[in-house]
């Protein structure tokens, strides 16, 4: 039995490596045999460029510097959208009056993609970090609100009823029942809005910045150095993966009593 299992895992490793290898081989062959290769780097060139990127600066800072800059921007916008989104979501989910007042206005904003705010943000705040923070903020905000709201309005009404019958005050009900039962939803919101924020920073940097991973991608194209473009994509993909994994680990730690999906 044990032998059979390890045989299976060997098969998995072999096939998986084959899959990734064939991707790189196709990439390499396309570069060699078509005119694609005249502008686009081959996989070994990208690997070499990546090592160089950690040592020599691309533009103003090294590759790690660009990653750091993008992360810092996401952190600011993401914190803002998480805090405000949770507050507005709780307000709309827990209070019927709050929902009646805010929901129609929120409904105008909700379907607008965060990225579509870029031109407005530039006209309001100019080109710079404030615009990027704003884009990340709007990108995550409505998702946060939607998730928290559905959490707060899906509270087990029997629990609320029991607590009220036993004489708990309304604000106590909110703190001891509604808020805790929202936590898994808040985490779902945090996860979704983190990946949206990461996409928003990329788009915002492509349009208004002079540093960061998004800038790398676009500047690579504009200056004809596709290598920088590929490096930017790898960096963005890798960091996005790390962020998502960290978030999932955190959720498992904090919401162990209720794992959703």
């Amino acid at each position, binding site marked *: 039995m044990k032998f059979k299992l390890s045989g299976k895992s060997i098969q998995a490793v072999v096939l998986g490596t084959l*899959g990734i290898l064939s*991707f790189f081989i196709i990439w390499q062959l396309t570069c060699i045999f078509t005119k694609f290769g005249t502008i686009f780097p081959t996989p070994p060139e990208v690997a070499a460029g990546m090592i160089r990127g950690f040592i020599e600066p691309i533009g103003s800072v090294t590759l790690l510097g660009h990653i750091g800059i993008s992360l810092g921007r996401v952190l600011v916008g993401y914190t803002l959208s998480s805090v405000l989104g949770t507050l507005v979501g709780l307000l709309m989910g827990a209070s019927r009056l709050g929902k009646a*007042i805010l929901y129609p206005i929120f409904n105008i904003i909700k379907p*607008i*993609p965060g*990225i*579509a705010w870029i031109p407005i943000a530039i*006209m309001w705040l100019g080109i710079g970090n404030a615009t990027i923070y704003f884009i990340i903020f709007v990108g995550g905000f409505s998702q946060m609100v939607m998730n928290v709201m559905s959490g707060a309005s899906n509270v087990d009404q029997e629990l609320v009823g029991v607590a009220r019958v036993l004489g708990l005050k309304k604000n106590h009900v909110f703190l001891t029942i509604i808020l805790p039962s929202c936590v898994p939803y808040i985490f779902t919101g945090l996860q979704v809005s983190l990946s949206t924020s990461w996409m928003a920073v990329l*788009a915002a940097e492509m349009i208004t910045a002079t540093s960061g991973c998004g800038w790398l991608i676009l500047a690579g194209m504009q200056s004809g150095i596709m290598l920088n473009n590929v490096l930017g994509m790898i960096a963005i993909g890798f960091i996005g993966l790390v962020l998502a994994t960290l978030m999932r680990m955190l959720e498992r730690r904090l919401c162990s009593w209720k794992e959703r999906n």
Partner: protein
Amino acid sequence: MTKKEKRERKKYLLISVISFAAFILIWECVTEIFGLIPPKKLPSPRTIVNVFLYKLSNTNPDGSVLTAHILTSLKESVLGFIIGVGLGVPLGICMAWFEKFDLFFKPLFDLIKPIPPVGWVPIMLMLFGLSIWSKVTVIAIASIVPAIINSYSGIKQMNPVHKWVAQTFGASDRQILFTVAIPTAGPMIFAGIEVALNASWVTLVAAELVAATQGLGYMIQTSRMVGRIDIVFMGVLVIGAFGALFTWLLGMLRRKLVKGGR
């Protein structure tokens, strides 16, 4: 109780209407009537409506009327969405059904998945230039990812008991796939399609902001450059309206087509 509930509902509906009207009124007041915020920063609701009507028949400042922009955007996003979903759903089903296929593709897919679709714009631009295909391919990438993920986990979710029953009664593998597994995965697959449509609209806007010659994203970007914030606002609202329309249409379709809960 029901009567009271009805009255309550009416009351809250009224509050919603008042709140919405107040929002528009305050907006109009601070911009047009009292001039607290200059029109260069925030156009009044009336200006936005006017510019919407104006843009329907006027090509200033970006070279096309509004309907032409809308049509281009719709064409690009729907085409990309159909390609993405058309490839993604069968691929996801195959990955979940054939183990070797899964082992081969999963690591590669995991490698490509976390790259935000917008990041592909420069490469596609290099390959396809400013034609619609640079946008269509990016949108296809944006919608293929959720399509694969959801159809994969939808099939994997199948209750093994159902499979065993089918096997006991002599169903072939193929019959199990088409009559048990895929219908089970239906709601999940549909949810993936909804996510994909949403992603394709968001990505479209991003792609058009970076590189286009027509389309809603291009319209708001050009209008920003010439300082027409009224057109920018109108464009953003139109983009939002179409996003909402898509969500609503798919929701209706789901209620019609998909049986069973999520």
